[in-house]
């Protein structure tokens, strides 16, 4: 079976700086693939290449999902979401803060809604076919709100939500675009212990129920180690390791990347704790 996402020889240069250097890996359907690495390792840059915000210098990004095969590097940013079905969230949350929670989820269904409203003509006339489509969209939004416990606050401005709620809402909003691949950029940043456990459950649930692939950038090792099926480690733009959480945990190259040269014999155990970085430190 071909993998959902195949990244081949991805390189991204900014002038003389090579932010991502010849990285190749794959991500599978119904799996959580985590990308970790120290700050400045090129994780977010890689995400931006994947989701069309940057045009990669070289490399091929192939997505083979339910909607067909796409070469992502050749699509415009919005078409990567609309046609290929790659959704993403942002490191610093990007909700429409002045709009209500429900509206945020409705905007995510824009493409379908636009067609249903006959490019606004049916909508202006208030035809029943559009009304039905709108009800369906609300229904989908509602089911997500129920899942992330925000039904009560559906009519609040998104900016008035607590931080953890905003994180979950952003994930729900990305899911409302009905993606085949969900890219999450540090979803656990700034969450407390309970909240990041809830997040783990949510991500596992999305993976199992919706059967889509999840690509995850994360610093919180309790999240990464707890839910990843596969981990890719980047350092200075290069891939230095790839494998299951257990393999990564013991990989000396990874330890070196995070902590420098090992000096003591029993480092791996300490690493496992120390890697659980304090999110506030970033």
């Amino acid at each position, binding site marked *: 079976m071909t993998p959902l996402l195949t990244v081949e020889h991805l390189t991204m240069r900014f002038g003389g700086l090579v932010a991502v250097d010849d990285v190749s890996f794959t991500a599978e359907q119904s799996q959580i693939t985590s990308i970790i690495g120290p700050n400045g390792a090129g994780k977010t840059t890689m995400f931006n290449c994947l989701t069309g*915000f940057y045009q990669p210098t070289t490399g091929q990004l192939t997505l083979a999902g339910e909607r067909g095969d796409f070469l992502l590097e050749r699509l415009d940013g*919005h078409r990567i979401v609309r046609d290929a079905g790659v959704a993403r969230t942002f490191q610093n949350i990007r909700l429409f803060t*002045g*709009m*209500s929670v429900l509206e945020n989820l409705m*905007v995510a269904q*824009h493409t379908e809604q636009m067609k249903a*409203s006959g490019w606004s003509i049916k909508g*202006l006339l208030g035809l029943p076919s559009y009304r039905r489509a709108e009800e369906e969209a609300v229904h989908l939004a509602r089911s997500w709100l129920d899942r992330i416990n925000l039904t009560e606050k559906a009519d*609040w401005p998104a900016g008035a939500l607590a931080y953890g709620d905003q994180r979950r809402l952003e994930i729900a909003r990305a899911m409302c675009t009905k993606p085949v691949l969900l890219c999450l950029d540090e979803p656990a940043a700034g969450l407390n212990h309970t909240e990041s456990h809830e997040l783990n459950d949510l991500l596992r649930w999305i993976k199992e129920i919706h059967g889509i692939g999840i690509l995850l950038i994360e610093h919180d090792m309790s999240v990464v180690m707890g839910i990843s099926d596969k981990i890719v480690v980047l350092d200075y733009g290069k891939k230095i390791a790839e494998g299951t959480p257990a393999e990564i945990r013991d990989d000396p190259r990874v330890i070196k990347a995070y902590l420098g040269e090992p000096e003591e014999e029993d480092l791996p155990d300490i690493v496992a704790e120390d890697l659980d970085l304090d999110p506030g430190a970033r």
Partner: protein
Amino acid sequence: MTGLLAGLDGNRLLRHVLGAVLITFLMTSLIVGLELVATQTGLSLRPRYHIVLYCVVVVALGSTAVFALAERSWRLPMLVGVVIAALLLVPLLTGNLASDLAFLLPFPVAPLNWLALLLPAFILIRAAQLAYASARPPAAAARRREMTRTGKLVSLGLGLLLILVAFAFPISPWGSRQLVDILTIVLIYIMLGWGLNIVVGLAGLLDLGYVAFYAVGAYSYALLSEYFGWSFWVCLPLAGLFAASFGIVLGFPVLRLRGDYLAIVTLGFGEIIRVVLINWYEFTGGPDGIGGIPRPSFFGLPFQANPPRDGGETFASFFGLSFDPYHRIAFLYYLILVLALFTNWFTIRIRKLPIGRAWEALREDEIACRALGLNPTNVKLAAFGIGAMFAGFAGSFFAARQGFISPESFVFIESAVILAIVVLGGLGSQLGIVFSAAILIGLPEFFRELEDYRMLAFGLVMVLIMIWKPTGLVSHRDPTIRLHPRGDGR
């Protein structure tokens, strides 16, 4: 008295006020203090320092008020005193009251002059208050700003009442020719404001060349009727279509630009259209404009005293009325009223459709929109084109009403006025636009003497309102769709 002055740092106040006074004096010393007078041999200068003195006094009082509020320790009672002192001191210091005040305060009656003094004072105070408040960390990061159910009902009721009154007005005993004329002009601006609101208020695109589309609409009708003899009713949709196409053709390359670049390009485009209208003499009549534009008819019945030469009936003869020019004025009034209400209906409706939500989302965060699969260029183009279309409708009505158009009517300042109406009304608020159009357009129409000072006040008010309320006068926002009924505590 000591209670009022408690906590006042006299030295700092003095420094603050003296600084303001000195700067004002220097700034006004040449531009205001010396009048350039044309004489036979060239220009000569005539001193006018009493007006400089007046400016200095006003600034001194204003800066005292600002200081008082910024200090917080020294409050309202003192402010009232300051304002009253302002009213007393100005005539005292400048002596010859009537003529000197006329420079800044042109109103024919004393109470209006007083109001003109009080209003800026009030706005200044509020501005200072806000400047002070913004220096502190906000207490609650994002409060829910939403109308209550009663608030919604009140504004709905007010809107309906206004519409009823607007329809009843020309046939009521108060409907005079002059009043209906003024209201027609106000309605044109309301319609333009509602149209621009789609672009600026909903989609957040700052368009400084809106008047260009108004011009396209006006010239479309004028030229189509001149060259092809088409009637108003055929030309009206065409004018809208032309204006919209202009909007899309212009918008396509420039809408990718960042907000302030867009503002400048639209401004440049507005000027280009005007320059072309002036210089393309053979086609547009150049600076002379186009005259003799036919007036719209009532479903084919013209408004004129005598029946048309080719037979047929006039409005008056058809309905068995005696001819009265008031019929036509009232008809034009109803026409623009219907057009404006259509614009309003359209805006309210489209805001709740996917495209309307996309506009607002785009205004908030374009990057997030792209990440949700929206094509920002298309969404913006839709806003730009639709906004332009309404300007085109309004333009063809304008041409039909005036019977004469020239490039003079489509200068940048018109764009600025329309923008001011939208911004002062509170970006996105339909009712707010009605009020600000009534104030900005209606009042000066009544008080012709204000004409010269109107733009000065415009500029000042634009600055002050922005400082006071950067989001506009009426800035609450209602969600376009709700999960729970309003006001059930959630």
